[in-house]
């Protein structure tokens, strides 16, 4: 993001500290011990309704396959593979340590570990690192222009991807076994961006195109050996893998993972109950929850997610270009009802604001409720109807756009009901989940209000506030305009920009400021936040050592089967 280019460095002290702390443990020689572990072996059987597209870790932007890439691929740094809040820490992975910032936070020198090999048997070299970052641009990575444009030389790569060299941006030194990154400006989230699968290091000879269904060479404990998007994926041990950091990449217990595609969630639940499958990706259907929780309670794991379900309102077209109309919807929406649709209070928490509970910068705030304060209690229909009257939008036609997956159609129907109760003439349109997210972003489609979700990419408040609500995230006429509401507030933008700079030097202070920005954005009412969901994982009784990470959800390499 262009706004991030103004940053200065030293907030990395925090990241560095956490990374270094992790490093101590990471160098433990656990590989041999774990190999001899009694729990090692067996096959973990995974199932989902559909595959998630390409196997290219530098292109695929889905939670489903990121979970796989986290055990097959490595970046220079990685999120710690552990449970709880420590899973948000960045630790060194292919690099020996998290480098200290130089040149005011604009230069980082990573030293590569020696002896790490790809699943092809070839050793990982600095040249591979340079080629991987060039490849990010050559294959038009979805976030190349927003996450990695801070690397020097990226401008030319964005203009002409095919000839991308990142000259002066990413420099290899084979003799010293180092890779130096030069940034155009300090970026407090740079390590986070390197820790996602987009930052995976691939062999230099990996084709500069989407690999599709052909697996890329792996560095992690596992590698994909076969993949048919219509049928299945087989993941086996990488014969060249040796543990170099238990925190970054533990050896993994199971010898094989078989991922079956094309199984409906209903059938997947039955299969797991019968022990025919071990874990399902999809959300369990609401009508099976009671049965699961009463008969198979010990096989259920519920964990909080850094995510929100929300209804962005297009602030640039009628009727939601009227703030009173937007406020009215916020006051009228019964968040308890929305939570009920998702599965009840054990599976979701009512939310009024942009940031999810527990996220960096979160301070509870809810103005859109009876008795406004920190917690949503009940809708305030009296106030909502007063605002509607004041807005003059009664009788306006509104179409709610929802996708056809999971609870979204039901949320859309409920929202239509709320809008009609307010006096709008509302209908809903359900469109395929394959296109809905891009459809609602494009201003040419004149979407008034929609149902969507946002899950964190990494644990930074800017991943919600800056990404979803800054003027820079609004691109009229484009399918990639993730500021779906089209909300552009200059004062809010100024606060965000200022705080991105603060985040570099003083993260606690920045997080306090993010809370204020969050509250200001909530007051602007560009959307209706409904709730923050929780993750329900249903596993077979064979699965042990279920470990939930905020980043990877279930850590596949830490589960073992009996």
């Amino acid at each position: 993001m262009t706004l991030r280019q103004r940053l200065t460095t030293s907030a990395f002290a925090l990241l560095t500290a956490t990374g270094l702390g992790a490093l101590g443990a990471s160098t433990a020689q656990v590989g041999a011990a774990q190999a001899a572990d009694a729990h090692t072996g067996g096959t973990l059987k995974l199932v989902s309704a559909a595959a998630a597209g390409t196997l290219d870790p530098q292109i695929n932007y889905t939670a489903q396959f990121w979970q796989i890439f986290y055990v097959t691929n490595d970046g220079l740094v990685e999120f710690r593979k552990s449970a709880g809040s420590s899973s948000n820490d960045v630790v060194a992975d292919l690099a020996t340590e998290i480098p200290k910032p130089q040149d005011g936070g604009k230069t980082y020198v990573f030293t590569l570990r020696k002896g790490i090999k790809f699943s092809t048997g070839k050793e990982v070299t600095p040249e591979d690192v340079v080629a991987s970052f060039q490849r990010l641009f050559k294959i038009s990575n979805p976030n190349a222009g927003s996450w990695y444009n801070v690397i020097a030389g990226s401008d030319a790569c964005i203009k002409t991807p095919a000839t991308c060299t990142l000259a002066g941006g990413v420099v290899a030194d084979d003799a010293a076994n180092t890779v130096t990154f030069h940034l155009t400006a300090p970026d407090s989230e740079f390590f986070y961006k390197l820790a996602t699968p987009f930052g995976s290091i691939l062999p230099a000879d990996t084709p500069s195109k989407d690999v599709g269904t052909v697996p890329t060479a792996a560095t992690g404990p596992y590698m994909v050996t076969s993949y048919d998007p219509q049928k299945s994926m087989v993941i086996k041990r990488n014969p060249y893998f040796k543990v170099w950091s238990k925190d970054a990449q533990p050896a993994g217990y199971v010898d094989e993972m078989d991922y079956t595609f094309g199984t409906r969630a209903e059938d997947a639940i039955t299969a797991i109950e019968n022990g025919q499958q071990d874990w399902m990706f999809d959300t369990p259907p609401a009508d099976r929850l009671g049965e699961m929780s009463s008969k198979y309670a010990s096989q259920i794991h519920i964990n909080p997610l850094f995510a929100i379900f929300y209804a962005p309102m297009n602030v640039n077209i009628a009727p939601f270009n009227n703030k009173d109309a937007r406020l009215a919807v916020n006051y009228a929406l019964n968040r308890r009802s929305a939570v009920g649709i998702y599965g009840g209070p054990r599976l979701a928490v009512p939310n009024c604001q942009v940031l999810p509970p527990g996220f960096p910068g979160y301070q509870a705030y809810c103005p859109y409720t009876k008795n406004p304060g920190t917690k949503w209690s009940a809708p305030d229909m009296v106030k909502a109807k007063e605002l509607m009257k004041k807005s003059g939008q009664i009788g306006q036609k509104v179409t709610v756009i929802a996708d056809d997956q999971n609870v979204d159609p039901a949320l859309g129907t409920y929202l239509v009901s709320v809008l009609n109760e307010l006096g709008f003439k509302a209908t809903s349109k359900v469109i395929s989940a394959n296109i809905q997210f891009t459809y609602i972003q494009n201003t040419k489609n004149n979407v008034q209000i929609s149902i969507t979700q946002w899950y964190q990419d990494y644990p930074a408040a800017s991943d919600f506030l800056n990404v979803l609500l800054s003027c820079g995230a609004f691109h009229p006429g484009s399918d990639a305009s993730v500021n779906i509401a089209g909300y552009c507030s200059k004062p809010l933008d100024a606060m965000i920009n200022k705080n991105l700079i603060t985040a570099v030097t003083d993260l606690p202070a920045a997080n306090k400021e993010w809370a204020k920005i969050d509250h200001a954005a909530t007051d602007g009412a560009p959307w209706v936040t409904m709730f923050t969901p929780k993750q329900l994982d249903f596993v077979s009784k064979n699965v042990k050592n279920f470990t939930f990470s905020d980043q990877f959800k279930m850590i596949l390499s830490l589960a073992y089967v009996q």
Partner: protein
Amino acid sequence: MSDTASGVPASLGPIESAPATAGRPAEGPWRAGLRKLRQDRTAMASVIVLVLIVLACCAAPLYASRLSQTDPFQSNLDGQITIGANTLDVMQADTAGLGLGVTPIGPTWHAQYLLGADNQGRDVAARMLYGGRNSLIISAASTVVCLVLAAVVGIVAGFAGGLTDTILARLLDVLWAFPIYLLAISLSIVLISKGLQIGPINIASDSLILPILIIGIVYVPYVARPIRGQVLSLTRSDFVLAARCLGVPAGRILLRDILPNVTTTIIVFAPLMMALNMLTESALSFLSIGVQPPGASWGTIIQDGEDLLYTRPMVAIAPGLAIVITVLALNFLGDGVRDAFDPRAKLRVRKD
């Protein structure tokens, strides 16, 4: 030239009316057909069932306001109802085990929530009645569209012959070649997303006219081809040749000699096509490309019930049963109409 009220040429045509009994005028084919239909107990039972269904669906607003006392189009996720001395949540939080999930109230067998609630807390019985109205309207209107278009195409192709027939027949072949549901789904996806605008005519995407047109059009070949075949046969028949020899204008032959003879075919098709159209409408609505929310049809209610099959199967079973009963009644009626009006059936009966 015709000499009966129905236009059937009694002296020249292939269809002979019932023999006159002493002292009574000859019974026309329509009257004879209706008499036969009235004598068909299965067909009459079907008519009664259909009338009851139509009346029940027409009474939907009355049921919703007086008995159910709910708005079947508004979510009622936080609502409560009182049955006897008990106050119950419409959406009931599960308390067993980990306490996951919220389940709609099941059938109460009382006026309120007779068949329970759907996943929006809406009264399924009230929605069934409203949904039935849409299902019946769409299936009936699309049947009319289909039969009118098929009659026009079939008669023009069969009567005009030559190039006109070749073009129309090939167009029907092209339409026939598409798998019917694939064609209906494709048309629906295209039209439901943005509606239909042809010149000054603008049909909104949530209008019932769209599914009516789509379903009506996709079935045209199924009716038009037999009509065309019948017209081809009729144009070569003696009474039409005689009329032509007498210099009767083509338009008059069409109206007075051809059309009355294909009318029975169209009538025979009507209930059968209506049954088929109801199934198609249900399928499209089930796939979210038929009746659009907050409207309802039996297909959309089955879709609503899909996610409640394990806990509240009634939400899907009730509209499913309604479709089965209505389609069966239409098919039985169709059989009766065919037996009563189809000339071949009549001859067969006479031989018996």
